[in-house]
């Protein structure tokens, strides 16, 4: 009898402390959101490296009674710490720097203008967000989605609008994957067949001197002008120096493999862990997703528009299709330029030429983030 009683009391206790008893409708919906994101990550292959851990983190965060957000330290709280204090995004940028080749940009520096023009999407979305009622900090964090740079988006959101982090990260990484769908119609709409058929001359060779001096000089110049992004830009350029110095391959290799992979797991999971029902299941999220699309389309249009201007001013030396690569989303946007160019004129390889605006867009978005932080923080 005692046994039976203890039995039922114990089972009751397990059930009472289980996640099922405290489960809310919000948890349920957020787990469904997580499953949807997993589907997008693993089946649709939308940036699976980031969206996978984000989705799983979102699911984990919505189990009640796990104690992840309690007083006591635990692995999930430790990961969250790296998000809250912006420790992970610069380390990701260290690896991205080690993966990035700035040669096409150095060979044709004018493509920096395209990287700047593509930031128009950021500011269009900022304006749009203010118009629909977000305050200026939130609007800036939302706008940066248009920069198509995941780590920069997470960095800026954490600083300006941490409650929107989940929605912004999801929107940023989703749209980055959708670049091959979003950009081509705009590209065809905004350019003429003649423009698309322009064959560009070859890029000059870039010396090692230029490749080593550029990251150093640009770090000094930009960090002095915009100190809030010194950590982000400094890490990007330090990683690039590891790559280009020729004597630190060991560090370059680790930065772009073991280190970035470890930090990616933590950054993704930690970002997903911020996705609580209260912060995500709001109309704001839908607005953010809508504004993100506006931002991407605006950035694409801005880059193309400037591409057309440069085409005119150079007497047809620049194919405007490379302008859309200025949104960054390296190297996907550059490949979209290549694809659309080849469809208009088979054999017209634009990939190399589009890599210039493409990496310029990474710098451009970091500068845009720095500008907004300088003005708003």
């Amino acid at each position, binding site marked *: 009898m005692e046994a039976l009683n203890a039995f039922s009391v114990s089972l009751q206790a397990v059930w009472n402390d289980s996640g099922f008893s405290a489960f809310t409708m919000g948890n349920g919906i957020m787990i469904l959101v997580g499953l949807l994101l997993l589907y997008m990550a693993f089946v649709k292959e939308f940036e699976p490296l980031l969206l996978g851990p984000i989705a799983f983190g979102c699911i984990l965060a919505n189990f009640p009674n796990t104690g992840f957000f309690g007083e006591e330290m635990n692995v999930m709280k430790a990961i969250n710490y790296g998000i809250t204090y912006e420790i992970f995004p610069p380390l990701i940028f260290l690896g991205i720097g080690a993966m990035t080749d700035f040669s096409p940009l150095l060979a044709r520096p004018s493509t920096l203008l395209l990287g*700047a023009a593509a930031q128009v999407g950021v500011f269009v979305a900022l304006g749009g967000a203010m118009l629909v009622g977000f305050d200026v900090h939130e609007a800036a964090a939302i706008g940066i989605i248009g920069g198509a740079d995941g780590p920069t988006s997470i960095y800026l959101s954490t600083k300006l609008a941490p409650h929107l982090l989940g929605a912004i990260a999801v929107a940023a990484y989703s749209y980055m994957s959708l670049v091959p769908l979003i950009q081509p119609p705009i590209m065809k709409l905004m350019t003429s067949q003649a423009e698309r058929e322009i064959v560009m001359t070859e890029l000059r060779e870039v010396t090692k001197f230029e490749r080593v001096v550029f990251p150093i000089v640009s770090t000094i110049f930009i960090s002095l002008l915009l100190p809030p992004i010194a950590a982000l830009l400094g890490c990007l350029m330090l990683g690039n120096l590891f790559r280009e110095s020729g004597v630190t391959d060991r560090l370059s290799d680790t930065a772009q493999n073991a280190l970035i992979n470890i930090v990616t797991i933590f950054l993704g999971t930690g970002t997903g862990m911020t996705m609580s029902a209260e912060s995500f299941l709001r109309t704001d999220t839908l607005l953010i997703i809508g504004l993100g699309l506006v931002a991407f389309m605006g950035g694409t249009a801005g880059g193309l528009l400037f591409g057309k201007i440069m085409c005119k001013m150079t007497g047809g030396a620049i194919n405007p299709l490379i302008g859309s690569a200025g949104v960054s989303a390296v190297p996907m946007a550059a490949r979209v330029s290549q694809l659309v160019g080849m469809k208009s004129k088979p054999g017209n390889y634009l990939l190399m030429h589009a890599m210039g605006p493409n990496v310029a867009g990474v710098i451009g978005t970091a500068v845009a983030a720095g500008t907004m932080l300088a003005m708003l923080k």
Partner: protein
Amino acid sequence: MEHSPVTTNPLIIMMINMTVVFIVLISLIYLIKLIHFLDPTKKPAKPQVTDEEEPLVAVKSEPAPAPPPVIEEGIKPEVIASISAAITAYGFAGQVKAVRIVNHEGTAWRASAKFNTLQRK
């Protein structure tokens, strides 16, 4: 250092930010040109500094006389692009002479590792 924004007009905020971005990136253009100008290692054969679009590695990256690929209808253009990119990539890869050995380098540690191998017998 929380500032109260100077203006709440979205359009003005947009314009200010955009202007700063352009100023910074245009300055970078001139910095890059300056680096190129000061570069002590650049080829003297090059006719003019301003003629920066001059091809040097041309033949390698775009085999100009290559016949345009025949694209059959019904195949998604993404597929074609990726295949031709892959072929190009592997074609080039075949021409790479010296492959960087990652995870090692030509200084003390590598020598140490080599020495140890040698040492152990």
